[in-house]
């Protein structure tokens, strides 16, 4: 008899606090499966953001530092420079990464820091109750764009991997989605590539993961998957935006 599936060692055996239909649980598991497969659990340091995933330390069974809002890439830089042999990643949402933490993200990429950012894009600030994020779609209703995001007043959604792609320090930039099995498998492969690029010393890597937020989108989980497919994927096309030679 062969084992086809086993418990993910890096993932704590505990209940998640996330809402039904939220993508965080899937992405947590993907990250932990990759760490297990790379046999890196005991050499991994995760940096938690401010937002729904602030409680990472409750779910990941390895060393965790919780950072101030948006500052995770700077904290990760401080960790990686002191522990160059360790796998160091941040796990950040769209508000944390692309709004308040834009500067720390861009400059970590510009320096080519050997860190990986796992970027959850669900087009809103989840934890604070669904306000507009830098990734909120045009005309999307949030609690701070009650009439829909008006680009004349509130600007346009930010495409993060595209924004970083001109920086030589960024060696692997991809956008994947966690909304169905086929894409979840692809997401896992992408996370593996990003971590491997870091451990091979190539430079900065980032994986954006399109994610659902049924609670703040005011939808049920099935509707939210449809909404992601029909609306997000047009503005946020999937694929490897950048993968330099040597990334595998």
């Amino acid at each position, binding site marked *: 008899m062969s084992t086809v599936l086993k418990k993910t060692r890096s993932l704590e055996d505990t209940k998640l606090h996330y809402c039904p239909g939220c993508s965080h649980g899937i992405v947590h598991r993907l990250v932990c499966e990759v760490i297990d497969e790379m046999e890196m659990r*005991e050499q991994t340091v995760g940096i938690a953001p401010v937002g729904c995933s602030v409680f990472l330390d409750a779910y990941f069974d390895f060393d965790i530092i*919780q950072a101030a809002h948006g*500052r995770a890439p700077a904290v990760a830089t401080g960790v990686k420079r002191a522990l160059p042999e360790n796998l160091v990643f941040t796990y950040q949402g769209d508000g944390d990464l692309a709004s308040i933490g834009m500067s720390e993200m861009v400059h970590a990429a510009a320096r080519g820091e050997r860190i990986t950012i796992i970027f959850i894009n669900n087009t809103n600030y989840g934890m604070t109750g669904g306000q507009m994020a830098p990734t909120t779609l045009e005309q999307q209703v949030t609690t701070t764009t009650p009439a829909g995001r008006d680009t004349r007043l509130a600007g346009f959604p930010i495409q993060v991997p595209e924004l970083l792609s001109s920086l030589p320090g960024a060696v692997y930039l991809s956008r994947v989605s966690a909304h169905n099995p086929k894409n979840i498998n692809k997401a896992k492969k992408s996370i593996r590539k990003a971590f491997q690029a870091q451990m091979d010393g190539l430079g900065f890597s980032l994986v954006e993961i399109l994610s659902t937020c049924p609670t703040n989108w005011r939808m049920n989980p099935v509707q939210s998957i449809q909404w992601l497919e029909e609306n997000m994927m047009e503005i946020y096309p999937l694929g490897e935006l950048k993968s330099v030679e040597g990334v595998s």
Partner: protein
Amino acid sequence: MSRVLMKGNDAIGAGAIAANCRYYYGYPITPQNEIGEYMSSEMPKVGGVFIQAESEVAAINMVYGTSATGARVMTSSSGPGISLKMEGISYIAAAELPCVIVNIMRGGPGLGNIAPSQSDYFQATKGGGHGDYRLIVLAPSSVQEIYDFTRQAFYLADKYRIPAIILGDGFLGQMMEVVELADSAKDDEYARIPEKPWAITGCKGREKNIVNTLLIEPDTLEKHNWKLKDKYQQIAENEKRADLYRVDDAEILVAAFGISARISKEAVDMARDEGIKVGLIRPITLWPFPDHVFKNLDSVKGILTVEMNTGQMIEDVRLSVEGKIPVEFYGRTGGNLPDSTAIFEEIKRMGGM
């Protein structure tokens, strides 16, 4: 032990490296730029890391990350940059991580100017960032003390798991004096890094470690805050320091820190030459404030606080004397120095001369 002529800002870098600090993150701001420049050339020689960060905010968060790994780490800045670091300092204090932060004070508020000042006393000693925390604050008054206090700051930071601040000013940063350097071959308690079982290093062979400042349950956060308070109490009991000069028979006391104390010392000597019984109290730890040296001053009729601001440390002096002695103030701001003859005139006036 070797003696070298050294600029104050360079002495901070030399002191840090002598204390086995191997990580420095900073952002350019006058009048402390020599610190970063020194680190950029000296850190690689000892296998250390220098990063010119994209902002003060990033620099202090790099400090947070490196400190969490257990390594000795420092950042430096001046007033406006220290304001930006305050978010990170609050997190580092909350997470009980050790590090050294240098503020070579310049004129404020706002962009102020690049001339020397002591106007960040409140910011350093009363908080500055959000929440209920304290920092150890050391105030040197010479280049030698800058070198020595920087080394001691790392020791104290590790001992109590707390950020320590070196609070200097633009004069101290820019002046050159002879410094006796520590003998690197000698066993040096300031250079010894203690075991840090709490450090984030990867969980090989142990349970995971967590560095976290979110304590969502009120009872948990309250417990943590009282634990911090107990630690601050312990520091206050053990680490208060002040330098006393000609105080034994004094009827008037001058209270001043840093460069102001050095100038005040000259004024005290001038007044003593005139027969005025005057002495100087120079707080070295601004937090914990050395209130004990302001007790039982039965012969003292008045205290003159001299600062390069509009009156900040004077509040701690007043708290220390508990209303028993009148406390007056003489200060200059904007980058101007309190002149020793002007302080002497104040002393004479208080002495009824």
